[in-house]
């Protein structure tokens, strides 16, 4: 064992891309269904705890929360990666500030019915946002606008487009792709694409 951890050298030696990924400069649109068209005035985002307590924000209340500029690499399981993508959004630390929970797991729910599961600890400590701008523009519907989940350290299917709520749970349930063969966690650096990887 050297001084530098294997994870660190593995990540930055030679390439900034996780294994099996290629670089793209555009922003491919992947869709498992029709694009939901949610007007901001009809948009609502909620966090529901394991005891059923609901915390809700409408668009106006959401925009009044402190926002952050976020620059991160993103990695899609279909093998494209985009480096230094620029977003604006509200940190989930801000949204969870008044949420009391002992749950370990979260199911993200989207307009249109999409779901994806994540450990709560992956959404906190500056790792995840509800993003509503991409490269200085309001987030387009094709990319999940008005607002999407952004969890850049996991494969991008975890960054649910058109997110409308997070449900906390004591049980680790599987979301849309996770229940059909994709990995339950999805760490691109460990190439966790499929169940069992």
């Amino acid at each position, binding site marked *: 064992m050297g001084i530098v951890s294997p994870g660190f050298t593995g990540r930055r030696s030679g390439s900034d891309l996780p294994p099996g990924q290629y670089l793209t400069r555009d922003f491919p649109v992947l869709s498992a269904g029709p694009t939901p068209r949610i007007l901001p005035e009809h948009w609502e985002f909620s966090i529901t705890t394991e005891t059923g307590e609901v915390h809700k924000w409408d668009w106006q209340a959401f925009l009044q929360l402190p926002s952050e500029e976020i620059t991160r690499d993103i990695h899609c399981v279909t093998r494209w990666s985009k480096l230094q993508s620029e977003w604006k959004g509200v940190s989930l630390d801000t949204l969870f500030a008044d949420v009391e929970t002992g749950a370990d797991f979260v199911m993200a729910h989207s307009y249109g019915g999409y779901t994806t599961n994540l450990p709560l600890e992956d959404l906190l400590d500056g790792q995840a946002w509800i993003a509503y701008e991409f490269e200085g523009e309001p987030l387009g519907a094709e990319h999940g606008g008005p607002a999407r989940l952004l969890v850049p350290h996991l494969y991008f299917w975890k960054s649910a487009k058109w997110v409308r709520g997070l449900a906390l749970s004591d049980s680790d349930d599987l979301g849309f*792709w996770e229940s059909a063969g994709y990995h339950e966690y999805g760490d691109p650096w460990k190439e966790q694409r499929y169940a069992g990887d």
Partner: protein
Amino acid sequence: MTADVPTHLDGNAAAGALSEVFAVDLTAATGRCNGCGHTGVFAEARLYADAPGLVARCPGCEDVLLRVVTTPTDTYVDLRGLTYLRVPNA
């Protein structure tokens, strides 16, 4: 075709992907949607392929009828959105 209108194919496009799983002609099959009860030939389904897997949706209510994910070792087929798939006997 514009970027914000995801394109979908017709259900026939799923027949190829499923031919290794089902030894039947899916294009001739009839399916009933678990969501709205719409019953029609599977070829009428709307197939979304620009995604981590194939997703066939009901032409009536857009609920998911079927999902297929192909991994390097296995093919996952999720039929939970279909009440039934009716296949004519050969």
